[in-house]
């Protein structure tokens, strides 16, 4: 029983950064922006969160600073893709390289070559009073960092906003048919730009969760593909918040499974469980791509004629 509890609790924890980032990407994707730069945004969020927490001594202020910095970083992406109308994929790749170079440079300049991490305020486990005492269910669902609860609470909210509000309708139509939107007076560029900033907010939180929730320090390159996994979660989740939650959980579970296999000292090479998310994303892409919710205007800058 203990093992089952630990497996599911680990799954939820590991799914959280993917879910947070993917809930941001799902909006920018729906608005027609291919956001390959999420990886870089998370990296920026992870470092700026640690710096913020180090300077202010408060993990929440640190997260706030991470959000602000990551949104500014996302604005660069928005500027190039929406204002300059450059190729989104190439700009996204450039943003990832930029984030990798900048975080190393800044980390070195601020913290130097140290053998110990700077001491920072970090997220602590916040058991929900009462609920966390329920056997089995409690430790699985109600004994986590606050950001874990927040990420999952955000799913129904994101679903409501996307499918039941004007904002969601705008975002979806801008991705589906920018030209028609333009003719009825929806500002295509602005909608896309704002959805990029929104994905920046969530990537910043996701990055902070990795550096201050799962761990309490920053190491260079610590996101290690997490942003691309989030992108995969959006594709595998077929561009809906609920689907994204499902795929984040599947990816989290495959990671938890790997740690489980390792702990049991089985002879399964750890590389194969690590491939699971990538393989099922490709397979699902092939199965659903004809019925995909991918917006028609995806990846194409909108140029007024």
């Amino acid at each position, binding site marked *: 029983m203990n093992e089952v509890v630990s497996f599911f609790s680990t799954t939820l924890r590991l799914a959280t950064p993917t879910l947070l980032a993917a809930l941001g990407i799902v909006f920018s994707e729906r608005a027609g922006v291919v956001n390959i730069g999420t990886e870089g945004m998370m990296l920026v969020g992870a470092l700026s969160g640690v710096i913020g927490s180090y300077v202010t001594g408060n993990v929440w202020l640190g997260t706030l600073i991470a959000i602000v910095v990551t949104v500014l970083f996302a604005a660069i992406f928005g500027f190039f893709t929406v204002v300059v109308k450059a190729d989104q994929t*190439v700009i996204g790749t450039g943003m*990832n390289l930029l984030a990798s170079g900048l975080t190393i440079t800044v980390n070195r300049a601020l913290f130097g070559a140290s053998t110990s991490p700077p001491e920072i305020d970090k997220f602590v486990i916040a058991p929900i009073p009462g609920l966390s005492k329920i056997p089995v269910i409690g430790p699985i669902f109600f004994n986590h960092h606050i950001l874990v609860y927040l990420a999952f609470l955000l799913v129904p909210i994101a679903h409501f906003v996307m499918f039941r509000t004007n904002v969601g309708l705008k975002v979806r139509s801008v991705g589906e048919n920018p030209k028609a939107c333009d003719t009825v007076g929806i500002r295509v560029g602005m909608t896309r730009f704002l959805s990029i900033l929104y994905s920046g907010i969530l990537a910043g939180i996701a990055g902070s969760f990795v550096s201050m929730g799962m761990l309490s320090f920053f190491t260079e390159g610590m996101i290690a593909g997490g942003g691309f996994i989030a992108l995969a979660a959006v*594709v595998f989740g077929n561009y809906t918040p609920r689907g994204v939650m499902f795929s984040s959980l599947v990816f989290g579970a495959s990671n938890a499974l790997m740690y489980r296999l390792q702990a049991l000292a089985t002879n399964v090479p750890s590389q*194969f469980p690590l491939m699971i998310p*990538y393989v099922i*994303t490709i397979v699902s892409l*092939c199965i659903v791509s004809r019925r995909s919710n991918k917006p028609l205007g995806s990846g194409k800058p909108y140029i007024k004629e």
Partner: protein
Amino acid sequence: MEGLGIKQRLQETLKSIYFPFVAIVVSLLIGSVVILATSTTSPLTAYGHMLKGAFGNLAAFDATLIKAIPLIFTALSFSLARRSGIINLGAEGQFMMGALAATAVGVATPNLPAIIHLPATLLAGFLGGALVGLLTGVLKVRFGASELIITIMLNYIAKELISFFVNGPLMDSASSSYPQSAPMEPSARLYKFIPGMNVHTGLIIALVFIFLYYFFLWKTTAGFDMRVVGFNPSAGEYAGMNIGRSTIFALFLAGGLAGLGGCIEIIAVQGRLMMTSFIVPYGFTGIAVALLGNLNPLGVLFSGILFGGLSAGALRMEVMTRNVSSSVAVVIQALIILFIAGRQMFAIKKRYRSRSSSGTSAGKTVTDEAKDDDAPLAPATAEEGV
């Protein structure tokens, strides 16, 4: 084009170097702000060391050339795919799989004469990458799956496969339990060929493939079809071209080019496959090289050398200044990608237009150039996103 006067030629020349030049200058300027903010060294001193380390003397240029070779291959890979209307973000993984396949052949068969072993290893490298490209192409054409996501996923799968092989089947039994393959057999390696320089014969192979890239795309029917499909798929379809086949073939070749680059990096430079063989993002840097070179054969050659110099120079910059991190070079590379991809922002609209419509023959030149150079880079040509 042949009938142009000196003045017009000069204009054309200026026009074609304008964007790369501005992108590089702006990136260096922003890079200097980063240097000012994070170190005590003057940016000019830092860049001076970088330049010396890249092109300062024969030894520096030697190092630059060695660094340029893998980038030229990944850049050709991106360029070829882009010319056919595909964004190949998979050069990273294709490069790794080319290296993996080449290693398997390069270590597994001792006592073969080099005349057989070396071509077999190079072929394995090409095929290792090409098969990954082929897989991408088939999935894209057969299932309509986006090549962007597929290539990104395949990059990570390739990374795990390398880790698996160097920790398992290909692990060197002699060096016990370091995650690396055995050293490549001497018969499967490339050697230096210019006295006094360390650059290896991979340089010649790179030059040959730059020529083949030019010859294939501009002098063969298959290449012409590919470019037409890339430029305007519906026109290609109308002309009776098989778009699916062209796409698959393009990805096969693009993957092969990247794979060959990975193979050469292992058999000429690193000597054996290691866990740490691919710390440098060869594939992604190749995108910057391709874009800066405007997807042209000679452009790729020159921008490859420039980027090789950036990386060789960054090392010297770090060694000499002692406090400027070589990661500044990564920042500069990234900025070059941003500014060259977003080069529209530097367009001097009024003048550019009036000039292009001035001369009588210039009109033809501009359309010609648009077809040759600008089209694959223009926004909105990605016929499919994620």
